[in-house]
């Protein structure tokens, strides 16, 4: 499957997890594709640089580079949008007022612990709002390709990359499957490709259960 096709598949499936009226923060990468697949569902997008009610990319003539997303792209405002400063934005995030944060990950462990900001041995120079979201969001969905570019699995038994904090992901959506996390570990809840369970197990780095039994 072509990468962009896989990314869209993931975005579509994550969109199904969102409900009308949800306050949602979308991270960079795959999550930014989600708004295109919400259909009639109306969610409120929060942008950590100070906006609730983010709308789509404006026409060229309506661009204002002081109205941008956290990814630094020009955006518009939905009716009912509100503006605030960075400290108030993180009151919203850290204080547990974001219903769903959708983010990418470098790794997720079998209990949902997330590594999404630093690779060992590489320069650690960017964290942005990732750790605040991990600590504060009510629900965390990881939207990620099943494997990293080098073929190593994203879902792992134990993180080898630096953790993003004590907050846990609730759901992982990849191009092959939807997993749910709990204190008991990982549960496969849905298959999204024609891989057999055996094949899926092959490319996944952590044990998981399916319909009550360990795969």
């Amino acid at each position, binding site marked *: 499957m072509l990468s962009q096709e896989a990314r869209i598949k993931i975005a579509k499936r994550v969109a199904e997890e969102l409900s009308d009226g949800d306050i949602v923060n979308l991270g960079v990468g795959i999550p930014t594709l989600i708004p295109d697949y919400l259909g009639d569902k109306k969610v409120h997008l929060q942008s*950590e*640089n*100070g906006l609730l009610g983010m709308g789509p990319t404006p026409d060229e003539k309506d661009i204002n580079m*002081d*109205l941008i997303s956290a990814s630094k792209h*020009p955006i518009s405002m939905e009716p009912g949008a509100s503006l605030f*400063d960075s400290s108030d934005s993180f009151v919203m995030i850290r204080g547990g007022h974001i219903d769903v944060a959708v983010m990418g990950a470098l790794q997720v462990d079998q209990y949902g612990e997330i590594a999404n900001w630093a690779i060992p041995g590489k320069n650690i120079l*960017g964290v942005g709002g990732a750790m*605040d979201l991990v600590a504060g969001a009510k629900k965390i969905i990881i939207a990620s390709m099943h494997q990293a570019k080098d073929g190593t699995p994203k879902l792992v038994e134990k993180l080898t990359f630096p953790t993003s904090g004590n907050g846990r992901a609730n759901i992982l959506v990849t191009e092959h499957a939807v997993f749910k996390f709990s204190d008991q570990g990982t549960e496969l809840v849905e298959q999204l490709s024609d891989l057999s369970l055996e094949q899926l197990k092959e490319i996944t780095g952590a044990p998981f259960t399916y319909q009550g039994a360990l795969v």
Partner: protein
Amino acid sequence: MTDKLINKNDLSKLINDGDTLLVGGFGLSGTPFTLIDVLATLGKKNLTVVSNNLGEKDKGLGILLHKGCLKKAIGSYFTSNRDAVYEWSKGNLEIELVPQGTLAERIRCGGAGIAGFYTKTAAGTKLAEGKEEREFDGETHVFERAIKGDVSLIKAWKADTLGNLIYDHTGRNFNPVMATASKIVIAEVDEIVEVGELSPYEITTPHVYVDYLVLSDYKKIGGKYVVPGS
């Protein structure tokens, strides 16, 4: 029209070698380009800059880095400026990486007379190493100290002659908290209006926080800031 308005070149008298500067902006929005341009000509040394990111290569704060004015940068995201990464790897720039929300809150505390606070953010991570950790309600929290600056360089949309400020959409970002947390606060603005033209409900930064106003050299054309004279 207002005794807070100064010439941009007066900046040389207000900033000293070794100062800690709080500089507004997220990406290149709400960034005091004019003040940074002037600062880059002053040859100041050993500055510590607190800002979400260090601009981009040769844009915004990237210029100061390029000129070798910086000793240290405190922020949440430096990866957008390759030069910052390079200078850090060469040992020419100290970097203190702080989660974005923690950064905003530390600066707010600096302006609010609060010495420090406990947050769940970053507990158990590399960014909490060496910091006090403490349990509250069964969860680990990290202790974070307030950040204060010598001079804040902020960017607003409009000021009135008293120095009240409003910001353009998400150009607000870190500017309002930075306006509270330095001994000297200099606001670059696109426009200065008469007192009474800004509604009491709109004013985001009350004039008490603003010491000086500088008119921006940059004009927005087609929604994008255009370098003066270009």
